[in-house]
Structures are given as C-alpha cells and as structure tokens.
C-alpha cells in the first residue's frame, strides 16, 4: 500500500482546517444572530448598542481571520511537506 507517509500528514493538515473553520464560525454566526444585538442599551460614545456592537464585530472578524490566516500558513506548509 502506498499511503504510509502521506496519510498522517494529510490528517494533520485536515485537523488544522477544522480548527480554521471553528475559529471563523463566530464571525459568520454572531452577525446573523440579530436578536442578540437589537437593543439600544448600553450606549457607547452616543452610539446605541445595535450600532457599536456591529462595528465591534467587524474588528472581531478581522482578528479571527488573521488567526485563521496564520494557521493556514502552517497547514499549507504541512501539505507541501508531503514530499511532492
């Protein structure tokens, strides 16, 4: 059988991709969960909660995407390390 060394390498890179999806999931789900943030209080610098919370979500999703990007670098390196 030929899948002696590629198989474990592939599994580890797949695991990283699962991690990436899990990290990115909140950035997709929370903005769509409208009842969570459809309220006026607490306000911040005069902004009702509805507005400033969504601005905060932009920052959160950017940070999560950076983390996902760093993990994807490792995943790509592992994939290349499969001896191709």
């Amino acid at each position, binding site marked *: 059988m030929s899948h002696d060394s590629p198989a474990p390498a592939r599994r580890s890179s797949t695991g990283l991709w699962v991690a990436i999806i899990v990290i*990115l999931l909140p950035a997709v789900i929370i903005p769509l969960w409208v009842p969570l943030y459809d309220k006026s209080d607490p306000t911040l610098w005069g902004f009702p909660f509805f507005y400033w919370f969504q601005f905060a979500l*932009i920052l959160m999703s950017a940070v999560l995407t950076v983390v996902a990007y760093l993990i994807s670098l490792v995943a790509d390196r592992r994939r290349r390390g499969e001896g191709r």
Partner: protein
Amino acid sequence: MSGIAVTVFVFLFLVVTVLGFAAARWRRADLDSLDEWGLGGRGFGTFIAWFLIGGDLYTAYTFIAVPATLYAGSVVGFFAVPYTIVAYPIIFVFLPRLWSVSHRHGYVTPADFVEGRYGSRTLGLAVALTGILATAPYIALQLVGIQSVLQVAGFGGSGNWFLKDLPLFLAFAVLAAYTYSSGLRAPALIAFVKDVLIYIVIIVAVIYLPHKLGGWGHIFSSAGDSFDTANKASVAAGQPPTKGLMPPPTLHWAYASLALGSALALFMYPHSVTGVLSTRNRGVIRRNAALLPAYSFLLGLLALLGFIAVAAGVKVSGNPPNPQLAVPQLFENEFPSWFAGVGYAAIAIGALVPAAIMSIAAANLFTRNIYRAYFRPDATPREEAQVSKIVSLVVKVGALVFVLALSRSFAINLQLLGGVWILQTFPAIVVGLYTRWFHRWALLVGWAVAMVYGTWAAYGVESPTQKHFGGPLVNFPFTETKFYIAGIAFLINLLVTIVLTIAFRAAKVDPGVDQTRGVDYTADLGDEEVEVELDPSRPAHA
C-alpha cells in the same frame, strides 16, 4: 456649487484620467491577451489587491444608496454591515480553491471553471448569462451615483437633455477610452486615488460633522425624534409607522437573510472574481480577507451619514423626494466648498473603478463563454483580447443608454433582481469547488427554476411608490416571516439540484467529463505547473 468646488472636482478628475491612460505602461506587458488586459497579468500583490478589490466591491452606488436607506428611516439598510462582515470568513475558505484551479487551467471567468468542471458548455453559458445580466444594471447604477453628485453639485446646464447630461457623457467617454487601452491596470491604479479620497472624506465627515452638530448622542436622538414625528404623521394618515433607529423584531429574519444572501452572492459577481483572479497567489487572497474589513468599517460609518443628514436637517429635492441625494446634499450644506468638491470627486471617481472592472468582467464572460465557446472555438489570445475590448465598450454604452433612456428606478429594480439571480450560480461554482457530486443537468434545472421563482417573487412585491419590484423581501413560504427572496430561491435551487442529481445518477445520465483533478484545487505559486505569468498561447484546457 462654487467655482472652488468645481475646480477641485475637475482637477481630481483630470489626475485620474491621466493615471488611467498611463496605466497601460504600468507593469508593462503585451496587452493582447485576456490574462494581461482582463486580469492585469495575474500578478497583483496584497497591497494593490486590497485597493483594487476594495474599490471594486464598495461602489459609488453603495456609498449613495446605503446612507439613503438610513436617511429614509429604513434601518434594515444597515444590513450592509453584517453582510460585509460575514462575506470575508466565507471567501477565506473557498476562494483560494477557485484561484488555484483557475490558475492551473487558465480560467478567466467563473463560467470557464463551471464549463471545465462539469464538461458542459450549456451550464457555462447559464453562469455567463447570469453574470452579464446581473452586472449590466450594476454598471448603470454607477452612473446613477455620478448623476446624484452632478445634480446636487449643479453641474451641467439646465437647458436641453444633451447639455444637462454632458458631464456624464464626458466622464464615461474618458472611462471607456482608458479601460479599452489599459484593461484592468487602469482601475487598479485609479483605485488608489479613489480609496484615499473616500477614506479622507469619510473620516473627516464622521469627526467634523458630529462635532459641528453636537455629538453622536445628539445625532441619534434627533434622528430618532424626526422618525417618531414622521411615524405619528403616517399613523394619523391611516398608514403603518415604518421608520426607526432599530429594526423591529419582525424584521430580524429579513435583516439576517439579506446579510447572508448578499454575502454568499458577493463573490459570485463576475467583477469580484476578476479582482480575485488578478492576484499573485493564494496568500494574497487570504491576507485580503483579513484586511478588507477595513472597508466594512468605512461603509458602516458612511451609512451613518444618513442619520447625520437627518440631524442636520438636510432636505432633498425631487417628487417624491429622492433620498439618494442626501449624502451629496449633506456635503453641499455642511462642508466648506473646496472640501465639498473633494467629496463629490471621491464619489464620482468611486463610480469609475467598479464600472471599469464590471465592464471588463462582463466582456470576458462574453468572449470566453459565448464567443469562443459557441462561435470561434479556436480564437487566438489576441482575438479574445480584441473582442473583450470592444465588448467592454458596448457594455458601457448600453449602461449609459439604459440610465438616460429608461428610468433610474428601472436600473434599481434590475440591480435588485441581479442579486437574486447571481446567487443562483453558487451551487455550480462553490459546491463545484469541493465535490463533483451534483449532476450538471440537475444544476441547470435548479438554476432555471430558481431564476424563474426569484424573478416572479420580486415582481410581486409592492411598495408605496412602486407596484412591482418594490423591495427584496417576501414572506418565507408557509410563514408570515419576511425573508430575502434570493435566499428562498437559493434553497429551492439546492433542493431541486439534490433531488434531480439523485434521479439523474440513478438513471445513469451522462455526467460529463471533468477536466480538473483534486490537486488543482490546492496548487499555489511555486508548485509544479503554476507559472508566475501564464503563457497566453498555451491551450486553456491543457
């Protein structure tokens, strides 16, 4: 508009024109192939791609229309913010796969990929036609954006229609000329100017105007008071109250489905794909997924200009009043005249970048998936580039005629439909990046059913001002909950595709030949067979 504002506006416009023509010499190459003319040589790095894709997605029309909805008291328009939040994590995952397979096989358009993946010219044609149909009204709306600015700025004589629209003609003739000569390099270079201007104008606007008007707290409360007064007036007139600062609980699903549906559709638009395929490698796309939210922040602030305009007591002209004039009118009333000129220029130039990329993307679709697929299977790269250049002109002239000859609300209706239509290519494109399980004919039927349903559903929406195409929301089937039409059509599309795939597979209907291999989807620059610059004369489906 004062002489100073006109001077600033014209000066900035001239700078951009010079840049547009000079772009032909930037990263110099022979522009006689689609890879060079239509994709800028597929070599843009993170920095350029950020400006290009940002300039491409956040259009002048967005900058006019999103604050307009808030100005009109319809807070659901703020869905543009969650929409652009949700889009990037999603594209982070699937777009690098599209980049890889396109680079390996020389695909220029999303329809090229679908054609190669499913071995079906017909399915490729369906995707291409959807793309062209969805993009054309979008280009027309960029013109509407420029028109709004010119109207408030008082440009153009008030005499006959020709003099009135002369500035618009000039702007578009110039745009058409440099797109023709420089291809994607022109909007890439102009995007720098556009985005820098937009960022400056918005940052100044959201700091200076609240300071002048008594702070954000005051802006929100006076906008809220103004909406309450309007609501009392509607109730007194026997109509339901519609305005507010917060979405009512009945519209939560509408808000979320608009955000998700638009996010999934965003990178199905051919011009977004063009931007993505012009990048140098997979890392550029992923880094941009993390960097592009800066534009979402900008868009959110910009949307709030709608409330600022209410608080500043901006009155718009037109009968019924046209809320799309709110932002330009706000600039006119509140900014010193030279800075109002910068603001107008930012919006007008902001229309040119996406209009150029959209016309290039539509032209590439026509060339690859109609002209070459059906009429000239052995067209040379040179011939392809020539056809694309000419079609890009035709598309722009078409958009111009569209806006001038037909009503602007017709363009807006079609753009609404465009969003519904383009999402229906998602199963073929994105699911196709992961699995070949869907049957090509099942995808085609699913697409067709969803297109018909979506168009019919949108036709049936009434609003106070329009009998048809009055909005993007209908009741979700068998419920009383408002939902985005594109989302319902998409679910129907998936359902039909899955059921028919099972049926066609059981009946052993020919599934077609797949030109791609598993490794194609993860290939990156530096891998075997992935060259820095593609050889344009190499057969595309080698």
